[in-house]
């Protein structure tokens, strides 16, 4: 979950099915839902990374798609109503998950869903669906630079 558009897309199909647990994973350095405060950015009042004066502070993530200091307000609603919960993964955890999926399945995931893959093992569920939002060809330079 960066700005949250991709995640809300896959959540949408399961919102009304209470048997399905919804879990979002943010980048640890851009976790507006996990560690942000309520602010107003780009026209929405929602959790943002901001200082005590409401000034937006820089997000950091190895993944361009997650490197954003705000999040769509619908995710804040899902968090506050406890319909979804949100975890975080660090750059290193995402890189490790990236390599693991490439080696075990031959699938090169984008760094954004690699954050979700980093938390999959810890979920206690019979069946887990991960939204693999994109392919990792675009991220190879970044990943190789960190290996």
């Amino acid at each position: 979950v960066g700005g949250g558009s991709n995640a809300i897309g896959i959540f949408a199909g399961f919102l009304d099915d209470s048997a399905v647990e919804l879990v979002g994973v943010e980048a640890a350095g851009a976790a507006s839902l996990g560690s942000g405060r309520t602010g107003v950015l780009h026209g929405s009042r929602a959790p943002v990374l901001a200082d005590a004066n409401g000034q937006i502070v820089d997000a950091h993530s190895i993944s361009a798609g997650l490197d954003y200091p705000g999040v769509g307000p619908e995710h804040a609603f899902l968090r506050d109503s406890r319909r979804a919960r949100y975890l975080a993964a660090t750059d290193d955890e995402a890189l490790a998950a990236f390599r693991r999926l490439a080696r075990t399945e031959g699938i090169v995931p984008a760094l954004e869903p690699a954050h979700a893959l980093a938390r999959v093992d810890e979920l206690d569920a019979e069946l887990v669906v991960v939204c693999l939002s994109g392919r990792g060809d675009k991220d190879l330079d970044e990943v190789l630079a960190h290996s």
Partner: protein
Amino acid sequence: VRKALVVYLMAGSDTPVLAEAAVEGGADVVEVGFPFSDPLADGPVIRHAAERALAAGMDTAACLGCLEQVRQRVDVPLVPMTYSSLLEAWGWERFAADARAAGATSLIVADLPVDERPAVRRVQLVAPTSTDERIRLGAERTDGWLYLVAVTGTTGARTEASPALAGLARRARSLAGGVPLYAGFGISTPAHARAAATLADGVVVGSRALEAAADGPGALRGYVASLRVALDEP
């Protein structure tokens, strides 16, 4: 009828002296920008000024202090202009009360829709894309005058006067029930100001005023006086 001239300055250590120069040059109202990190209504000049102000420590408390010092030097209406995130952090009504205590006569919150936070009295903005219904609501709720955003874009000097202002001013005139209309965004030269003032009751200058202010109070006074002359020509 004298056309109103509103001059925008960014809050900072020089602002009290600059505000005094603007008023000497003929400004009727001074807007004091409280900088925000992500000012989506602003073009490059005001954005950079905001970055510099934040780097210099102009947080909300410092801006309120600045407002107080400006108030000690000028007796015209003073209007802080800022963004919702600062009010959300400070407390909406607390912000309005503290600004008023520091000498503000009103407030502009550029990214706050007209139907949000009715308790926070402020100058409402309408744009060429506003529907008639929104213009009517803005006029009804505005504090003193209605801000006509002359362009569908951000603040900043333009070479030509906005072709969208005439239509917006005409609609606002018929919908606003006599509320004064001041036009801003893209107005920088005496000729622009004069052209806009044939359509509206006042004009707001921001980016070009900040550029003049960068050369000191004398330059700002001269620039504002050139606008005053253009507005007052019969």
